[in-house]
């Protein structure tokens, strides 16, 4: 009787092992590994990122690949969970033997993979915003999106220009919003601005009028800044309008996708936020080096998926391009060489801005990469 139990257990373990072993294979192509949050609360980051990577890998393979080698993409969905991300990162490194890691849609999933990436020694380009991904600098870790700190700085800069000195902060209590909140608190003093009300909400709250009422009743609030993504900011925007609040409403770069405007509807009129040039390609100055890049990317993405491009898709595009350029310069996918070349990336024109990395800056973007945009008549309007 007891033996049966054990045999059963053995069989299960063996079955699992066989199933896992079936996944592993090695081949000629350049292998790109990605772990993204294609499902879960951050799926609207991971989903476009995944689609972008798949589209461009296919496109490049049709064009004959890179350095005469085909590209092979392996993507896993971590569902936004750190522990899953860490296991998938290990799988990509150890089993799939990829040449580069792209991913971590969120700061949490990225950071969960960092310890083993550093140990394994493989170039890793994160698509998440958290500033702690690249500060302090980690040898193998790079990132393409602007940091949440930069978003905060851009917003505070804009406020300062408008003579705003007392604001309310309302943020989502999940990864993106929380990290943005903490970074905002850190840099806000540099702009002579005081945060007089600090409220949070859960990503799936049906209603945040309570928090906003509290803000409304706080004396002296000259503007409200909302840090969050997903449906939360849209609900904040609607409730804001409902309460008849008239001070300017700022959003973060987390809502830089058309979905936000669609969900929030008319209430989104007049909302200001920092965003990459990607959302307003036509309005960029003709001399802007980004203009051709973002125009082309937007066209290709929207043609392929029949949906509006978001800046998150752009992060994945930039990550892929930065890696491929570095590999081309290195002439191989030798991990050490590619890493060195990524670090030497200079003047790359991406969807997120001009990227020039150094040994002390593994992101390479400056504040100029951000534009302030305002929502007018249901569309983005450049408003620097």
């Amino acid at each position: 009787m007891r033996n049966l139990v054990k045999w059963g257990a053995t069989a299960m373990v063996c079955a699992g092992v066989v199933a896992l072993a079936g996944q592993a294979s090695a081949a000629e192509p350049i292998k790109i590994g990605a772990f993204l949050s294609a499902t879960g609360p951050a799926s609207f980051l991971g989903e476009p990122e995944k689609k972008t990577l798949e589209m461009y890998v296919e496109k490049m393979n049709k064009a004959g690949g890179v350095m005469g080698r085909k590209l092979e993409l392996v993507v896993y969905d971590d569902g936004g969970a750190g522990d899953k991300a860490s296991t998938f990162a290990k799988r990509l490194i150890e089993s799939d033997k990829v040449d580069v890691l792209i991913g971590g849609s969120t700061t949490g999933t990225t950071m969960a993979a960092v310890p083993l990436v550093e140990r394994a020694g493989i170039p890793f380009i994160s698509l998440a915003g958290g500033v702690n991904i690249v500060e302090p600098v980690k040898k193998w870790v790079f990132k393409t999106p602007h940091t949440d700190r930069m978003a905060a700085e851009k917003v505070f800069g804009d406020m300062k220009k408008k003579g705003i000195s007392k604001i309310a902060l309302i943020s989502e209590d999940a990864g993106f919003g929380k990290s943005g909140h903490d970074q905002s608190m850190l840099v806000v003093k540099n702009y002579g601005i005081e945060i007089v009300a600090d409220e949070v909400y859960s990503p799936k709250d049906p209603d945040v009028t309570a928090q906003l009422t509290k803000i409304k009743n706080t004396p002296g609030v000259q503007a409200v800044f909302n840090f969050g993504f997903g449906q939360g900011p849209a609900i904040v925007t609607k409730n804001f309008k409902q309460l008849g609040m008239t001070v300017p409403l700022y959003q973060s770069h987390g809502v830089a996708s058309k979905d936000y405007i669609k969900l929030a509807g008319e209430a989104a009129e007049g909302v200001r936020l920092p965003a990459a040039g990607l959302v307003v390609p036509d309005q960029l100055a003709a001399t802007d080096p980004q203009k051709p890049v973002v125009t082309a990317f937007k066209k290709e993405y929207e043609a392929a998926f029949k949906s509006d491009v978001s800046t998150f898709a752009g992060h994945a595009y930039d990550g892929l391009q930065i890696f491929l350029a570095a590999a081309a310069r290195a002439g191989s996918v030798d991990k050490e060489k590619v890493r060195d070349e990524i670090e030497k990336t200079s003047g790359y024109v991406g969807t997120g801005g001009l990227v020039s990395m150094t040994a002390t800056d593994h992101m390479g973007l400056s504040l100029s990469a951000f534009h302030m945009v305002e929502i007018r008549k249901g569309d983005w309007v450049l408003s620097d």
Partner: protein
Amino acid sequence: MFAAFLQYLFSGLTSGAIYALAGLGFAIIYNASHVINFAQGEFIMIGGMASATLVAAGVPMPLAIVLALLISMAVGVALEKFAIEPARNADVVTIIIITIGASIFLRGATQIILDKEFHSLPAFSGETPIGVMGATLMPQSLWVFAVAAVMIVGLWWFFNRTMFGKAMLATSHNRLAAQLVGVGVKKVLLASFALSALLGAVGGVVVTPITFTNYEAGIMLGLKGFSAAVLGGLGNGGGAIIGGLIVGIVEALASGYLSSAYKDAIAFVIILFVLFFMPNGLFGKRGTDRV
């Protein structure tokens, strides 16, 4: 000062009415089968997603809503027929796992059949806020209250005034006796799932203009609905409604007066305390163990 309080109250009532509708679905199925259906939130999600997708595809809104309700009911019936019915005599925990499996499946299926994006429906009667003594309320919130009220009255009528409704109630009190007088327990179970799927879908449709929806929207609503049903006392429809309203109002007042970061925690602490002193919820049947 009073205006702020009123605003918190409105906020809480809006959320609370949504939770109450979710909780009511739990209560109906629990009454008929003593099953806690953790896929209840998925009915709400399907109602919202289906109607929003249909409207986006150009179907007129009333038709889209009716279709969404039918889809959700079909899912409810299928769930009962293929997943609950075959496992009727299993342990409570086993059935819980089945319904959790069902909710994972339904989320997965929605994500493939429809998509992963957020959807919204136009508000039923515009988006001009209504001012009440310095506080404001969206017309859609009134819709939610009204629909919740209509649902409650409708259910009361169904369970107390129709033969079939009475039969369903009888089954919940004593399954054997109900069988003896010829009430088909199977039919009752099926009806209870259809009914709570309908209820969930109605809820999903009316709240979508407020909260939006995507394939994962059911998780939170399911959790809050369960909390509402337990707080009110399992199997007590009115209890679930009051439980939902309490949870919503506590959350709103907590974020207004205490801490918005801990509002969910505060709501749970209150539920815990209620349970410590009233182990069967606020209005649950207080059964002494017969030994």
